[in-house]
């Protein structure tokens, strides 16, 4: 029984981390209807940002998160203004290939700058690397990352529901034409959404680095995780991202306990089945999978 509780709790923690890693992808998809195949690479850059922040200045990425957020917001805005702006009303194929091209470029840029070494940092002093609750051990890094996930996800939901700008983003996401008629400038909203999405992804990378290794191709693992989370929880649904992340985290932890080799395969089989059976996910809007900006 204890082992079961341990597995479920670890799964929930991992799930929170996965949700955070996937949120940016879902936000951008929900608003601009773009599946960003370079999402994992932005996360990878976030991990390196956390790593270098700690290594060069000694600032813990947990405290440096606002800095990473600002930097990555600018990066995301640039990503939209410099590249995605030209593809936004084009066929999906164009977007897939532009983001795939960016993914190749960023992955190799990281390889060029920082070599293929596996890097990680230790953010916790000796003896504080895990929290004990009776017989249950939880890694502190994960608990903190989970805390970040909860705070950021809540903040995003509040922002989207309660603020004027957030509602404008929601409006664009629901009906582009109607939103334009209400005087919302989609270009501004797209810049803002890409900035926000990439900023969240960067922070996610920053708080992930203590518990995952950073290396140039780590993004291709996380992008598939993010796909699964988004499809599981629901396309375009922030709350769904949390549900999807937690479910995947639990499945992975329990599955990994019994069949460690097939841990990753469960992701993919889950993704294929979900896409076939319930493409809009558990909490997504029905038909969201067929939407494009037209």
């Amino acid at each position, binding site marked *: 029984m204890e082992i079961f509780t341990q597995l479920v709790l670890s799964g929930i923690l991992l799930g929170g981390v996965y949700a955070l890693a996937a949120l940016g992808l879902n936000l951008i998809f929900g608003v601009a209807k773009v*599946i960003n195949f370079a999402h994992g690479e932005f996360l990878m850059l976030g991990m390196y940002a956390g790593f270098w922040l700690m290594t060069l200045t000694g600032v813990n990425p947990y405290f440096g998160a606002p800095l990473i957020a600002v930097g990555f917001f600018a990066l995301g805005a640039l990503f939209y203004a410099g*590249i995605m702006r*030209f*593809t936004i009303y*084009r*066929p*999906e*194929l*164009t*977007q*897939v*290939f*532009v983001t*795939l*091209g*960016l*993914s*190749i*470029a*960023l*992955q*190799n*840029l*990281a*390889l*060029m700058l920082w070599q293929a070494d596996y890097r990680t940092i230790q953010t916790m002093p000796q003896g504080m690397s895990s929290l004990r609750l009776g017989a249950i051990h939880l890694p502190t890094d994960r608990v903190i990352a989970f805390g970040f996930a909860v705070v950021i996800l809540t903040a995003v939901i509040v922002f989207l529901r309660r603020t004027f700008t957030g509602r404008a983003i929601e409006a664009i996401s629901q009906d582009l034409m109607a939103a334009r008629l209400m005087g919302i400038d989609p270009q501004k909203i797209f810049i803002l959404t890409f900035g926000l999405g990439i900023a969240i992804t960067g922070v996610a990378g920053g708080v992930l680095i203590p518990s995952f290794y950073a290396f*140039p191709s780590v993004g*291709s693992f996380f992008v*598939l995780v993010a*796909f699964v989370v988004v*499809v599981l929880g629901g396309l375009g649904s922030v709350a769904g991202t949390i549900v999807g992340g937690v479910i995947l985290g639990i499945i992975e932890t329990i599955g990994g306990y019994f069949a460690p*080799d*097939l841990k*990753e*395969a469960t*992701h*993919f*089989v889950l*993704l*294929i*089945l979900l*896409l*076939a*059976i319930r*493409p809009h996910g558990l909490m997504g809007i029905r038909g969201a*999978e*067929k939407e*494009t900006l037209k």
Partner: protein
Amino acid sequence: MSRLPGYFEWKRSDAAWMLLLFACTLGLPLVVANDYYLNMLVLLFLYAGMASAWNIVGGMAGQFSLGHTAFFGVGAYTSTLLYNYAGVSPWLGMVAGGLLSMALAVVIAFPAFRMRGVFFAMATLAFGETVRILLMASRKYTDMPYGLSINYQPGLARMIFEERSSYALLAGLFLIAVTAVAFMISRSYMGAYLRAIRDSEEAAVASGIAMRRYKMIALLVSAFFTSAGGTLLAQYVLYIEPTSVFSMAFSVDLPLMALLGGIGSIAGPIIGAAIALPLRDVLLETFGQSAPGLHLVLYGVALIVIVILLPNGLIGGARAIRDRLGRRPRQGGVKAGEAR
């Protein structure tokens, strides 16, 4: 199939193109003597053939697969395992691999054909990764080594040759075969059906096209030839391992070449391969020494720029220029059902 000759569109320029294809695939291997260029030729023909195979399902039918590495890897592994452990000739192994790939295609088609566009791409991507993970996990239960090498023992029956030019000729024949099939499909009623499905699934079904059936045919043909390409490449390199034949990069390469040349057209993937492969090689040679990875950074950037500037590939770009010069004014874009 008996309907195939019923509606078949020939164009005036077809003969010239065919002659060019034959001259390149059968002539160049005999003329070129330099080892470097012969190697490039082998890879170019193989990739062009596989990109054409991808194009049948990805371009003509618009089912944007990112999981073709599964078929490629299955082709490479089936023939190699059969040859190494049972002594079966790779020629038969190639057919066996192709059939196995077709069986796999049926399995993935069940869920995947319910999806469209980018979701089909995601599902097939996951499929390709799954096959690799299953293969690597299966090593626990068999004594298969991580990498498989094929003993160098030249012989026609063993599909191993002393001369590089023989490989180039074989790869050239492969390219001709794929192109011939792509040509047959594209110009017959089937091509018209596939393009109708690509342009609008609803309209295609409403017009009485058995959509599932034709998507399936396109996928099966594509899977078979991609798998055969896997066998040929394995026989050329004589060494395979899970991460080299099952890689996302390969899955991305094929559509990339098709897109570069002109997606959905017959010549597009071939032109695309003829540009992408040498481009990558030149970049590697120029920048590979000074900074590892830089050549792929530039490659990625070039890709972004090309896709944004030339959404219909080089063929589309050339057509746009010709139209602007006003030699042959066309009304609107490509008409529905028209063979490109």
